[in-house]
């Protein structure tokens, strides 16, 4: 198995539809207008020598190596910066060019160490390749004069020389190897959009500098890896490559972090992962990555991974390692006992949004066919279930309407309740790229997120609303659009139900929805809101991107409908550059929903009460299916506390840390008689588990993930599961122990079953995915190449439905006891409950959750930067350290929830979305006060966690 080949064309592709024909070295070639001569040559199979050019960034023309001669033109133009023209006759190799190139290379090498044999880039060095390509045989200049190579010249310190910067945990910067091609600087600007790097100095003094001559770690660098990828030498090198050496084969797979679903090449040496490199042909990420996907995979070999199944009678007992057979038999007999004692509906399960489609499908199949009930749910319950409901009502499908490429065609973007540069970083970079090219931005968020103002990015409007008032703000936007006559009437008449529109329009036009009226409780200045509404309605292609700041409210579903209304009213549905785009949280949260993880739906979003759908599965599975909806996660916990729900199988989900109102979750879990947790680590939920089944990582199994744009991407196994089995095998073995006759030998067979039963997946198979790379569902006879954009010829439900969206204030209100509003979110370097990222070097960026407080609120309470503060709500209290910042408005505090010691969810309440029970994470009334230590709950919980991680015969695991 070789390395996956990738051709570097030197400059980006041109989008022009006009074609130009020219002759290069006697070959006639036709390329789009605007293509560089360098790229055209490469397409003709001729590689012009180059150093500063690479197709991830625009041409720069600094290395003078890619010169060519053009008949009828003077001199030797750089092929990277010279566009093609009709009838040009180009020569890439002439005596004159050869001499120039050799001279240029000689100068480069005269200031470059010749330690090639021991250099980490040996085998992957473009400088070495070019020295070979131009036939460099001699370097006349030596190091005796000025150089950056040696620490000392003639026994004296060399001020030009700089030591390696090893501050970043994942890569090193060795200035002595830098050829100042500035590819890294341009990658940081053009691809990532952070502008952390620059070239400092002039002439021979110039060199790459993170920030103002800082170390990488202290600079603005976000460690996305684009610079490392762009570097042609060993100047920027992954530490893993330095340690291991060059990879010998690579496999294309899909990142297991956020919902962007980036494609990566897992570059391997045997079964050892050397590095993850974003794949240029990956259609979600187009060759870009973030610090998590690129570097934070170390958890897969972390010493705390549990590799053997374990059982205990009581959760106060230490764990006892057992064989897999014993574990399966124990779970099967316990679940059967519980059902005998408490009834068929007394058990259930939770599928994982981190596991593959195939694994998720099997869990819901086990529950429906094996347990005989529909008590299955997934973590989408606590993130995007309102999207499913809201978009389903408005458009007839829960699907996000666009692909990620669509952002390249947008003119005005609304980002509401999402922080993509932290939570969906690669999409964030793609959005910023478009914004730098002129698209306008409206940010609706209680916090001043990075998108509001950062280098070369400035939102036209930031509407800093009070948490919980989304519906009022979005309805007020609609008010302005309707009352100022900015609706796209032609679109509405053609695509939507006109009478429903009229009803809605008269509703939103009521004066009480005007921005002047809503300002009083939303905190959004009316003038800014009007400006934003006008911009969105009149600025060209308008797109809306949103995240959990929309859904995780008691009116989450209503806000989703309000967003759908806004898109329809302005005619922004059904073509590139527009649409309603939910940014999904976890890698496969879309897939887990598609696969029938919800208690009321079979795969493909078909209600369980639908006889025809049940019939398909009943025939295939040979069982009678229950036609009643099952319990959702919060309902399961309620039923557990009540005493009618006694056993649960949880795959790859840490509800104790991630779900709201921790005390309620722990009470529910504690009331159960058999809690089975399948995970990589003894997570927080496992503190309440009776059986632990070790899980496998995405590197250890085959399958598919479906990202936020509905793209079905292959996950490919690159190493043997450390625990012995892929997760789908564990579920299958458990099903067999419970008497089910399952005989899958490979996940592809599970996908075949999905395709056979689920119309939107009809044409999906591993063979097909291998052939086309990836597809976006629906992928069927009607859409054989998938569906990048939805609703192109009318809505899935027929006519788009406008729905009245009345603002209802949440019951979670501030008052004298709890005067502040807490809202929660993610940070770039960490991922959700942190089970993975906390077990990587990413902790260097974020080792604890901090509470962001406005200086005004902090001063009132005598809180200084870094002080311990007690954070209390009516649900509970915890302590964490303060971070004083005006990113949050006065009256609002913010924290992340990545660390179990913080237990941010002890604070959050059991309020939830009216339609889906999605918890209201984003609004909790709190009080803060100075503190001198952990809360009682934290002390007790620490002790419980420590005790519950004891394994018989093993030293206590340190967490």
């Amino acid at each position, binding site marked *: 198995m070789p390395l996956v080949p990738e051709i570097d064309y030197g400059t980006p592709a041109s989008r022009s539809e006009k074609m130009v024909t020219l002759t290069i070295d006697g070959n006639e070639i036709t390329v789009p207008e605007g293509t560089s001569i360098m790229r055209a040559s490469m397409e003709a199979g001729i590689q012009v020598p180059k150093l500063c050019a690479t197709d991830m960034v625009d041409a720069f023309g600094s290395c003078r190596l890619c010169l060519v001669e053009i008949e009828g033109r003077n001199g030797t133009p750089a092929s990277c910066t010279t566009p093609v023209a009709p009838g040009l006759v180009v020569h890439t190799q002439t005596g004159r060019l050869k001499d120039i190139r050799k001279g240029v290379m000689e100068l480069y090498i005269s200031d470059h160490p010749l330690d090639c044999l021991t250099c980490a880039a040996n085998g992957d060095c473009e400088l070495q390749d070019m020295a070979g390509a131009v036939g460099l045989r001699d370097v006349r200049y030596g190091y005796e004069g000025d150089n950056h190579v040696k620490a000392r010249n003639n026994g004296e310190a060399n001020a030009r020389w700089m030591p390696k910067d090893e501050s970043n945990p994942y890569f090193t910067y060795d200035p002595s190897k830098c050829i100042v091609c500035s590819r890294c600087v341009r990658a940081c600007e053009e691809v990532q959009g952070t502008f952390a790097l620059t070239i400092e100095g002039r002439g021979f003094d110039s060199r790459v500098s993170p920030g103002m001559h800082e170390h990488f770690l202290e600079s603005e660098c976000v460690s996305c890896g684009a610079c490392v990828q762009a570097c042609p030498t060993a100047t920027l090198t992954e530490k893993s490559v330095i340690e291991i050496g060059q990879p010998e084969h690579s496999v294309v797979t899909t990142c297991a972090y956020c919902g962007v679903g980036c494609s990566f090449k897992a570059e391997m040496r045997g079964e050892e992962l050397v590095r993850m490199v974003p794949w240029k042909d990956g259609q979600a990420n187009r060759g870009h990555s973030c610090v998590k996907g690129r570097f934070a995979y170390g958890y897969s070999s972390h010493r705390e991974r549990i590799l053997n199944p374990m059982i205990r009678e009581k959760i106060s007992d230490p764990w006892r390692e057992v064989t897999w057979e014993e574990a399966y038999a124990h779970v099967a007999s316990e679940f059967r006992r519980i*059902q*005998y*004692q*408490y*009834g*068929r*509906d*007394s058990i259930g399960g939770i599928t994982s949004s981190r596991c593959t489609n195939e694994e998720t499908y099997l869990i819901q199949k086990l529950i429906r066919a094996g347990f005989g009930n*529909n*008590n299955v749910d997934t973590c989408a319950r606590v993130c995007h279930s309102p999207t499913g409901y809201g978009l389903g009502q408005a458009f007839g499908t829960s699907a996000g309407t666009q692909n990620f490429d669509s952002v390249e065609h947008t003119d005005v973007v609304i980002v509401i309740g999402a922080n993509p540069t932290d939570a969906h970083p690669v999409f964030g970079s793609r959005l910023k790229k478009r914004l730098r090219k002129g698209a306008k931005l409206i940010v609706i968020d209680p916090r001043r997120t990075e998108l509001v103002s950062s280098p070369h990015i400035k939102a036209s409007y930031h509407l800093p609303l009070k948490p919980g008032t989304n519906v009022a703000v979005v309805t007020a936007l609609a008010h302005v659009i309707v009352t100022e006559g900015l609706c796209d009437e032609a679109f509405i008449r053609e695509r939507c139900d006109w009478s429903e529109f009229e*009803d809605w329009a008269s509703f939103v036009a009521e004066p009480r929805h005007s921005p002047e009226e809503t300002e009083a409780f939303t905190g959004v200045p009316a003038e800014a809101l009007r400006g934003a509404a006008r911009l969105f309605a009149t600025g060209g292609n308008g797109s809306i991107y949103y995240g959990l700041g929309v859904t995780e409210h*008691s009116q989450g579903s*209503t806000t989703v409908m309000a967003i759908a209304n806004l898109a329809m009213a302005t005619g922004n549905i059904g073509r590139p550059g527009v649409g309603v785009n939910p940014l999904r949280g976890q890698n496969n949260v879309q897939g887990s929903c598609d696969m029938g993880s919800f*208690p*009321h739906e079979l795969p493909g979003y078909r*209600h369980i*009460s639908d006889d025809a759908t049940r019939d398909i599965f009943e025939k295939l599975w040979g069982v009678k299916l229950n036609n*009643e*909806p*099952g*319990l*959702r996660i919060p*309902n399961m916990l*309620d*039923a557990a*506390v*009540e005493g*009618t729900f006694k056993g649960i199988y949880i795959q790859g989900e840490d509800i104790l840390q991630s779900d709201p109102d921790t005390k309620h979750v722990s009470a529910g879990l504690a009331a159960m008689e058999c809690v089975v947790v399948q995970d990589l680590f003894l997570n927080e939920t496992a503190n309440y588990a009776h059986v632990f089944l070790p899980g496998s990582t995405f590197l250890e199994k085959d399958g598919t993930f479906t990202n936020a744009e509905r793209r079905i991407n292959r996950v490919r196994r690159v190493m043997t599961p450390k625990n012995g089995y892929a997760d789908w095998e564990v579920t299958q073995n458990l099903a067999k122990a419970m008497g089910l006759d399952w005989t899958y030998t490979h996940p592809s067979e599970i996908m075949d079953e999905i395709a056979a039963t689920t119309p939107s997946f009809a044409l999906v198979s591993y063979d097909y995915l291998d052939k086309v790379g990836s597809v976006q569902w629906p992928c069927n006879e009607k859409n054989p190449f998938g569906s990048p954009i939805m609703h192109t010829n009318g809505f899935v439900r027929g006519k788009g439905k406008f*729905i*009245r*969206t*009345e603002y*209802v204030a949440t019951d979670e209100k501030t008052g004298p006891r709890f005067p502040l509003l807490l809202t929660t979110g993610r940070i770039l370097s960490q991922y959700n409950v942190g089970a993975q990222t906390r077990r990587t070097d990413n902790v260097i960026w974020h080792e604890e959750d901090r509470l962001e407080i406005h200086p005004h609120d902090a001063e009132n309470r005598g809180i200084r930067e870094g002080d311990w503060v007690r954070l209390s709500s009516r649900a509970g209290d915890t302590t964490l350290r303060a971070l004083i910042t005006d990113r949050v408005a006065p009256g609002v505090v913010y924290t992340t929830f990545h660390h179990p010691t913080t237990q941010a969810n002890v604070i959050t309440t*059991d309020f*939830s979305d*009216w*339609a*889906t*029970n999605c918890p209201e994470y984003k609004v909790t009334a709190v009080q803060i006060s100075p503190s001198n230590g952990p809360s009682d709950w934290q002390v007790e919980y620490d002790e419980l966690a420590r005790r519950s991680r004891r394994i018989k015969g093993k030293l206590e695991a340190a967490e």
Partner: protein
Amino acid sequence: MSEGNKIVRMANQIATFFHSQPASEGPNGVATHINKFWEPRMRRQLFDLIDNHGGGGLDSLVLEAAPLIRRPPPAEVPPAQAAATATP
């Protein structure tokens, strides 16, 4: 908060949404929603509140919707309990 109160709160939240919708959709909307998403146990608790506790605390729209809400089958008697009662 007791589970009964939770059922009331959840039902009333749904009713609150449908109050804002065109009047013709009200009771039907509430009933359809509950039929689609509420597990029988939850509907049983709801009917218990309506039948045996005068619908205490429930929004009028929920009460109006009640006739349209599917009555769940009686709770399953667990096999163990059935066996115990069957034994003479």
